[in-house]
């Protein structure tokens, strides 16, 4: 071939390639002018706040320039923008000190999730069908405002309900301020892992209605009753940092750690001793320790046990020998642990998760509070203390309880259908996370108008008439006031780490906009144009009250807080422990109640927080689905944990499909056979079994909440989710994906060979 011919052919090929380029829709998009000044290849680190669980860790977001398809003014196009590439802990943040858990690491995928709601949606099909059409923000807001002004016109403001995930800080002030100024019902907060039992117990024992901050780092002896404090409970990163200190941070001194729970949790796996007690007897176990300490005069008696019946007589009913059968723990073990704990001060006890989700959960928590007081670990180094509240506004918002529970809301709607005429929904998913006995789904069906601010169409948002998608956390102004995890006052703050990708608006900004459009008292109560103005006003107050050492004026305080991810007090000064508000007769153990007769339903069902999916709200992230569970290595599905001996007796093998039945329903999941669970207990992770909630979570695994009995803890009204009894039977071969492979049949390619 001559050179000239070669060039001709190449030119023709080049032209074809160029034409092909024109045919690619990607290349037809408009190029927007960049909104930020960024250097290619240079990373900027911006502070943010992790919202994956309630711990409130501080983040640093690695932002680098990239090209993204975005919507600007309703127009799709391409823009060069700063994109979040990696999340790391903020090293200066007092809660997580630069560290992060797996759920926090995966926060990035919330922003970039392919199934995020990208633009406002209006329902077209029947409720729950998931059929929506895209509408503009103007239309969406018009619909919302017209529903709300109709309520105002007919003087039915009280029939507006706000159902939200638990909020903190100024976001909570804004939402409750909106509800109050509209004269609507107070907002209802809902999360499956509800800490109301611990807050009630701590309020009663110590005068602090918040979860404790545990100084594990200086502790020599740790007794945890059911609390998965290294995995998902309370402030797991702060507690893990302290745990590392407790084990190896002090030369020559290694604390001992005992975990008491019927199923070995990820935290229990790290314990020096795992003690399987009978479900619901954690409080009895704690008081038995107290009995031995009082009997053998190992520590001076304490008045904090006044809330427990029989304390002044030395708890005669809780002698280890007397409670041996009840707790299933040998008397000698209890006596030994009591002596060890008393001899190795500072010793501390903590309780949480399944142990507080029994009908006697409050008794269990109060028993542990009394034990801590006896061990002398309240408000002392190596013991429990309380994170001091921030500025008056944050403090007030954090301690005020939204009150009514989602169950009460459902009952109200079911008894009089007109009770709620419009419902605003923010990131709470009670349709997934309440037992069917609470009839939340039926109640929501009766509400004539539901508007959701959700970023994803989950089981509850699927019922909405209107979806007004929020920005992702990384795209939002965030603030937080973590109630535990630090001995400093913490007021976290973060500006958006990146510009929004989609046609979304921040929920607080939408509320402010709606308030402006409705006018009147509402507009007067919420005078700010945008949420960051509200935050700046709040931080000005905070500066006057607390921060005058940190900056020379309020403006500097505000900009410094944005730079470092918030403001925290310089000195560690835990809130003082008060006398408590114990009222009424001393508490007695009524024993845990279970639903289902022991004969017909021989097993306790113990649902637990999955390390990767938490309460199910993280099951939509592919990294979380593919990360192997720490104790079973299961990926992409759920499982039932069954004791080795029990499984053997019933002919159940690893991976077999098992049917779990309670009085309220049945589900099927593969069996994970383990020695780390009591023979009369079966356990299941919470988080899978979503009916929708994106392509990664939909129709995957089973949801144990759907077979739970609607038992409650009388004092708090919260769900006693450890109180259901079940029966199990083998159905056949199942499918369980373990890391390292779990083929139950030959793969297709090997059949060809």
């Amino acid at each position: 071939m001559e050179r000239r011919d070669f060039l001709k052919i190449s030119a023709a090929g080049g032209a074809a390639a160029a034409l092909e380029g024109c045919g690619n829709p990607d290349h037809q998009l408009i190029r927007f002018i960049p909104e930020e000044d960024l250097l290619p290849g240079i990373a900027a680190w911006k502070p943010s706040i992790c919202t994956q669980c309630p711990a409130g860790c501080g983040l640093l977001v690695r932002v680098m320039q990239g090209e993204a398809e975005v919507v600007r003014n309703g127009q799709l196009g391409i823009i060069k923008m700063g994109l979040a590439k990696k999340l790391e802990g903020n090293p200066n943040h007092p809660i997580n000190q630069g560290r992060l858990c797996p759920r926090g690491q995966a926060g990035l995928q919330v922003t970039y999730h392919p199934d995020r709601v990208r633009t406002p949606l209006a329902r077209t099909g029947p409720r729950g069908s998931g059929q929506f059409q895209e509408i503009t923000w103007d239309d969406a807001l018009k619909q919302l405002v017209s529903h709300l002004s109709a309520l105002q016109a007919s003087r039915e403001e009280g029939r507006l309900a706000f159902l939200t995930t638990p909020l903190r800080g100024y976001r909570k002030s804004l939402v409750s301020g909106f509800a109050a100024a509209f004269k609507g019902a107070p907002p209802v907060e809902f999360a499956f892992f509800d800490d109301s039992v611990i807050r009630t117990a701590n309020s009663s024992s110590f005068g602090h209605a918040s979860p404790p901050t545990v100084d594990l780092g200086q502790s020599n002896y740790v007794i945890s009753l059911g609390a998965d404090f290294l995995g998902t409970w309370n402030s797991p990163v702060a507690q893990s940092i302290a745990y590392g200190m407790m084990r190896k941070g002090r030369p020559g001194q290694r604390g001992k750690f005992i975990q008491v729970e019927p199923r070995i949790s990820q935290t229990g796996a790290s314990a020096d001793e795992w003690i399987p007690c009978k479900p619901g007897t954690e409080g009895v176990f704690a008081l038995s320790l107290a009995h031995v300490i009082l009997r053998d005069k190992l520590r001076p008696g304490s008045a904090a046990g006044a809330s427990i019946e029989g304390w002044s007589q030395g708890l005669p009913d809780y002698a280890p020998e007397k409670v041996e059968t009840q707790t299933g723990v040998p008397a000698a073990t209890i006596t030994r642990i009591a002596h060890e704990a008393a001899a190795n001060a500072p010793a501390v006890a903590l309780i949480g998760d399944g142990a507080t989700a029994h009908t006697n959960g409050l008794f269990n928590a109060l028993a542990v509070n009394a034990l801590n007081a006896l061990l002398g670990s309240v408000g002392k180094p190596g013991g429990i203390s309380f994170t001091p509240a921030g500025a008056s506004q944050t403090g007030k918002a954090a301690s005020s309880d939204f009150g009514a529970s989602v169950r009460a809301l459902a009952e109200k709607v079911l008894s009089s259908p007109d009770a709620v005429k419009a419902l605003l929904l923010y990131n709470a998913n009670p349709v997934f996370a309440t037992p069917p006995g609470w009839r939340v789904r039926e109640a929501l069906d009766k509400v004539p108008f539901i508007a959701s601010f959700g970023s994803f169409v989950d089981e509850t948002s699927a019922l909405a008439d209107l979806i007004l998608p929020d920005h992702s956390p990384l795209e939002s102004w965030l603030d937080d006031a973590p109630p535990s995890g630090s001995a400093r006052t913490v007021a976290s703050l973060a500006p958006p780490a990146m510009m929004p990708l989609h046609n979304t608006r921040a929920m607080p900004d939408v509320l402010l906009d709606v308030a402006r459009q409705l006018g009147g008292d509402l507009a007067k109560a919420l005078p700010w144009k945008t949420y960051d103005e509200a935050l700046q006003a709040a931080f000005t107050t905070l500066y006057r009250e607390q921060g005058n050492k940190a900056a020379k004026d309020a403006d500097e305080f505000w900009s410094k807080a944005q730079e470092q991810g918030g403001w925290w007090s310089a000195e560690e000064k835990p809130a003082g422990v008060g006398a408590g508000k114990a009222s009424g007769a001393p508490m007695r153990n009524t024993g845990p109640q279970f639903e289902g007769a022991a004969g017909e339903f021989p097993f306790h069902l113990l649902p637990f927080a999955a390390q990767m999916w938490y309460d199910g709200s993280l099951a939509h992230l592919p990294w979380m689905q593919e990360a192997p569970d720490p104790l079973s290595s299961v990926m992409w599905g759920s499982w039932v944990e069954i004791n080795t001996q029990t499984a053997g007796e019933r002919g159940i093998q690893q991976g077999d499909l098992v049917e779990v039945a309670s009085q309220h329903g049945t589900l099927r999941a593969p069996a994970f056979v383990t020695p780390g669970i009591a023979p009369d207990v079966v356990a299941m992770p919470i988080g899978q079994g979503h009916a929708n909630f994106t392509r990664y979570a939909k129709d995957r695994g089973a949801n144990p909440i759907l077979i739970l009995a609607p038992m409650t803890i009388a004092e708090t009204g919260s769900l006693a989710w450890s109180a259901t009894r079940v029966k199990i039977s083998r159905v056949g071969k199942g499918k369980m994906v373990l890391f390292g492979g779990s083929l139950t049949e030959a793969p297709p390619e090997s059949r060809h060979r």
Partner: protein
Amino acid sequence: MVIDLDRCTGCEACVVACHAENNISTVGEDQAARGRAKHWIRVERYYEGEFPDVKVKFMPVLCQQCDAAPCEPVCPTYATHHTAEGLNSQIYNRCIGTRYCANACPYNVRFFNFYNPVWDKPLHLQLNPDVSVRTVGVMEKCTFCVQRIKAGEIQAEAEKREVKDGEIQPACVQSCPTRAMVFGDLNDPQSEVSRMARSNRATKLLGELGTLPKVTYLQRDSWHVGEDARTD
């Protein structure tokens, strides 16, 4: 690297941090069921004893960056080779996918791309521009976050100084809540990693195979209070 098993709680922050840093794609349920999920670092668990006397031990396992790596001599294309700094590195564009290295590796830490990786849009925007994406037919493995090592060295050189101990942290080490993992220069006897590697709890994973792994594990400890201060 030193991993203190007495601090490790098996939380798997390292596992997800590694995915985020190194552009490791997820493979989905069906491929995962065939053992094709890719986790450059994993947490192994060992159950000991029968109910009620059960103990569980966690152990994070990643490429041990062996000095006598069994994966290296079997590679026909020198895709797997030893760098001057002592890293066991994988050169993706040399790899022709024989998978000999994965067969030779006793630690099971090499992962093969059976398909081209897929990120459902816009998940591709999370990709770290400092790390290349591997295509079908290529073996991949832990690099000790070589991109972070290089960035740290370049930064130090620009400032005309030595790299400081603890300045460079792979993503897993950075994220670890209990500080179970420590990374540093083993050639510097003063570094924290060297000091810890001399601990009387130090052990190597399958060290008896003669692979000379560069990851040291410190065994889980038992309870001791008030004993004489130990070196670890």
